[in-house]
């Protein structure tokens, strides 16, 4: 039976839970989490929605709570359509970060009822406890009522916090303890080319435990100026970029688990594989692929770091020069402003990329008629720029895992660095207009990523 490796929730979900669970009267309070499983082994549990159980409907004391049947029944009707996992969460205002004997008795009554009402393959339901310091523990049980603790509970927000470790000594960054911590994590790199190969190299050398590398392309001569570890014979033999990275990683970190997906991120297999990760690095230049990465981030509750480089040209009096050398890092948390809302991805560019790919003559005509800019130029291929951008991308992740910034992370939702003006421009989430998306926590249910292109083929009309 596949066990759950982690549970993830967003800042908004946590923000909805905390004040309800600790209203200030010192009494226990309750909420129900409806959760979905994602990942290629269905090993990550994510919170799809939060039901706050009305204080008035429970009997609340300072050390125990009674669960109203109606709230549980409502939760089972919500969970049934997609066989979701139900987690009954209550607070311990006294601060006990353990399941008490009363909690165990309560579970013995409620768990069988949940398993009878909501069934599915490998079904699990569970319970959880939260304490005033934000600490949390959770356990799940299968239909035979055999239970186990969920090893990690993540608040995947502006900071990435493991709620099960709130009371432990903070990990000293750049120490052996940090390496140990990273060895428990999974990172997915989408696009293993100019910036992606450098991101993968850094993650491996830092000691990240598992790497998922996604790229469909092969090494060519013209890539040798920027793909790290790529050799002339790789270009001659047309070796895939992912394989070059794996070979390098196993030569210096043989214990690192490496999974290769030799496909476009748009393929369903790649999407499902990526959903196993604790963090996504989007290192692609096409807007279409990046919008898919962004959808994986929001539907599967995975923080995303999107990195882009640009060397815009300038023409004056017939002489070409470089207007700027810049790179952009977007940290996208599930529930926060999307890449489209930040205008880091432009919908009309996604459309144009497709037309260039599918109907090149029509696209050429449109470019000629002035309807479309020519997007056929590849991204700048400069290793000095790619290295700075790749380093900034991985550093951004470390900043979210550990306290590295004096002002905290809220100001750095997007960072654009201009090497011509030697300046960094930062934007916080407040600088973008964004709204709550129904996609958050939707998981991998049909249609995948809420995109009609992945909808199952329509039924044949019978007569």
């Amino acid at each position, binding site marked *: 039976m596949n066990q759950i490796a982690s549970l993830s929730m967003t800042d908004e979900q946590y923000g909805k839970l905390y004040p309800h669970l600790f209203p200030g009267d010192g009494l226990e309070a309750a909420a129900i989490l409806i959760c979905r499983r994602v990942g290629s082994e269905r090993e990550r549990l994510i919170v799809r929605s939060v039901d706050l159980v009305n204080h008035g409907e429970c009997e609340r004391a300072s050390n125990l709570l009674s669960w109203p049947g109606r709230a549980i029944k409502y939760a089972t009707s919500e969970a049934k359509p997609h066989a979701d996992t139900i987690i009954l969460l209550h607070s311990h205002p006294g601060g006990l970060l353990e399941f008490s004997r009363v909690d165990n008795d309560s579970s013995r009554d409620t768990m069988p009822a949940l398993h009878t009402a909501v069934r599915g393959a490998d079904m699990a339901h569970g319970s959880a406890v939260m304490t005033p310091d934000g600490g949390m523990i959770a356990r799940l049980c299968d239909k035979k009522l055999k239970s186990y603790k969920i090893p990690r509970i993540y608040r995947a927000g502006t900071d990435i916090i493991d709620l099960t470790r709130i009371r432990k000594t903070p990990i000293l960054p750049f120490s052996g303890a940090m390496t140990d911590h990273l060895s428990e994590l999974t990172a997915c790199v989408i696009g293993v080319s100019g910036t992606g190969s450098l991101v993968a190299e850094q993650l491996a050398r830092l000691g990240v435990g598992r790497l998922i590398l996604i790229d469909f392309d092969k090494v060519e001569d013209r890539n040798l100026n920027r793909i790290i570890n790529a050799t002339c014979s790789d270009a001659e033999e047309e070796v895939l970029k992912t394989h070059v990275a794996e070979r390098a990683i196993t030569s210096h970190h043989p214990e690192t688990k490496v999974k290769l997906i030799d496909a476009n991120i748009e393929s369903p297999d790649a999407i499902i594989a990526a959903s196993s990760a604790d963090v996504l690095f989007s290192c692609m230049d096409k807007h279409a692929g990046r919008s898919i990465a962004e959808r994986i981030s929001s539907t599967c509750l995975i923080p995303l770091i999107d990195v882009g480089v640009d060397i815009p040209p300038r023409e004056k009096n017939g002489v070409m020069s470089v207007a700027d050398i810049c790179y952009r890092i977007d940290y996208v948390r599930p529930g926060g402003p999307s890449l489209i809302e930040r205008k880091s991805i432009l919908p009309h560019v996604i459309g144009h990329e497709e037309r260039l790919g*599918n109907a090149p003559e029509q696209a050429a005509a449109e470019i000629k*008629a002035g*309807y479309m800019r020519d997007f056929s130029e590849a991204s700048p291929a400069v290793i000095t720029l790619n290295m700075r951008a790749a380093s900034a991308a991985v550093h951004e992740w470390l900043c979210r895992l550990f306290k590295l910034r004096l002002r905290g992370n809220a100001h750095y939702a997007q960072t654009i660095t201009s090497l011509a003006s030697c300046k960094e421009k930062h934007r916080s989430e407040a600088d973008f207009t964004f709204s709550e998306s129904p996609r958050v926590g939707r998981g991998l249910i049909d249609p995948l990523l809420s*995109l*009609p*292109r992945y909808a199952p083929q*329509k039924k044949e009309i019978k007569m």
Partner: protein
Amino acid sequence: MTKKAESYGIRLRMPREKFDTKLDFTDDEVTGRQILERFDLRPAEEYVLLAHERDGTLEPVGLEKAICLHGKGPETFFASKADGSKNFMINGRRFPWGDDKISVELVRELGNIPGEHNLYLERHDEADRRLMDDESIDLSGPSLECMYSTQEFKLEVQGVMCAFDTPKVLVKDALVEAGLSPERGWIVTLYHGGGKELEVDLEYEIDLSQPGIEVLGAIPKTVTDGGTSPEPRREFSLLPRDEEFLEQRKLQWETIVEENGQRWLILRRFPLPKGFDHPNTDIAILVPLNYPDAPLDMFYCLPPLKLAGNREISGTDGSAEIEGQKFQRWSRHITDWNPETDGVSTHMTVIDGCLAQEARR
């Protein structure tokens, strides 16, 4: 304190041997051995005796164990010739059993499962199996056999027996479940028990929680404008909010995929405002693969349109080939496309606006 009766009736059932007899006992207390021997089951050591308690549980009865017969004592016992006790579970309750087989009929009786509820046997490496009434379950395997029941609501649709797990079912969903396409046009009749019939439409909600089985009959509607109209092609999906919008506006629409991979939404015989040289036209909209992250853009008309008086329309000098025919391109765009809120309905406001604006010239 109940009065002691003169005699107590005890029923002994041996399902395997099809033995089911009642005998009277005069003592208030009997042992397991005495019960077996009274029913001529000797030697008693070779039998397993189970008491069927009033609360529905089965309790093994030791040979020397004294059972009190008056008051709330058991009246029915099961016996089997076996050398060990097996167990099985029904809906989370454990039952001991003496035989290595038990009939589904008896499982239903012991588990108090009504006839309309389905009974399932849990499997581990394959889907759970629905148990039929004439079956027996083999308990001789190494693992504990677990069974559970669910309530299903049945409806016969056009000769096909369909099952649903909620009592309220929409007519259109019932048709789909029976393999009939609601768009095809049906005259649907709901037959209640007792001869009542009711003509119902697709949105009618059938309530299956009433006892008895309902029957739904469907007769295809014939289209009276010169033969049946062909089925609209639906070769790819749009967003749910798009399909709702198109149905609400009662537009005839198709989604087709061309050989070159381009996907088109085509609105057939779209009614035009006055001022054009045709009363209606087919409007095609290119739907990108990554829609709605990629926007809908432009629209294409066939037959190509001119204003009344043979006047050309600006921005219509391009074309696109769809199904081998040349559609006239109108270059009109939505600015600031928002994938969360924009779609066919918002693109239609652009189209409606353009057509109205041109028609006014």
